[in-house]
């Protein structure tokens, strides 16, 4: 009879990876309306993702990718979006007025 004892396996800590993924998802969702928040969330996702990726945590790579996308989209919408809307909105309002 083999003398095997059950070994308690500690669940892997994925907190940084999940924080990174959640921040990345929120950043990508919010880039249309709150580009500034999107950039900040992208940086949070990137930092947590890289720290988690080093620990081989789940979702960390997805968080890094979403964070990078969120930063890029956020910056584009902060700079280009504001200028486009500044120029376009008055023109559209003028043109669409019957």
């Amino acid at each position, binding site marked *: 009879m083999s003398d095997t004892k059950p070994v308690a396996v500690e669940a892997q*800590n*994925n*907190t*940084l990876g*999940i*924080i990174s993924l*959640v921040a990345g*998802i*929120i950043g990508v*969702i*919010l880039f*249309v*309306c*709150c*580009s*500034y*928040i999107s950039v900040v969330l992208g*940086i*949070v996702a*990137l*930092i*947590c993702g*890289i*720290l*988690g*990726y*080093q*620990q081989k*945590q789940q979702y960390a790579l997805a968080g890094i990718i979403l964070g990078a996308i969120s930063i890029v989209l956020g910056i584009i*919408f*902060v700079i280009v*979006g*504001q*200028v486009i*809307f*500044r120029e376009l*909105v008055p023109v559209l309002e003028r043109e669409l007025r019957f």
Partner: protein
Amino acid sequence: MNSPARIWAERTLLAFALVMIVVVYFYVTTPGLRDLIRPHHCLFFQATGLLCPACGGTRAIGHLLNGHLQLALKSNALAVFSLPLIFYGTLSAFRLVFDRSFNPSDIRINPFWLWIIPVVIVIFWITRNLSYFSFLSPI
């Protein structure tokens, strides 16, 4: 812990802080830039006429700083309730840079509470655009 990832994270945070200081300095001192970048303009609201989850956020913080909690909640309840989270995140960022004994991989939060955050944001986004929940839309 002085791993390459931590050093990279510290440098990114410091670079971000530096960029923010420079942007705020030029934003405050350059009137032309202030006119060009208008943070109070919500592109989503302009394009669709619907409120986004952050609409009224600046007003909410302004009211809160003046001690008007009710007006702050009326402007953007989500911004008021997310302040402890923002405070915790900022504190963690400071500890990451300045506290050598702080190991971010030791942080343990139940994933349920992390996944709740985007769900709450989306629910808030939808409900504040419904007429039945008009008390969630800013004045």
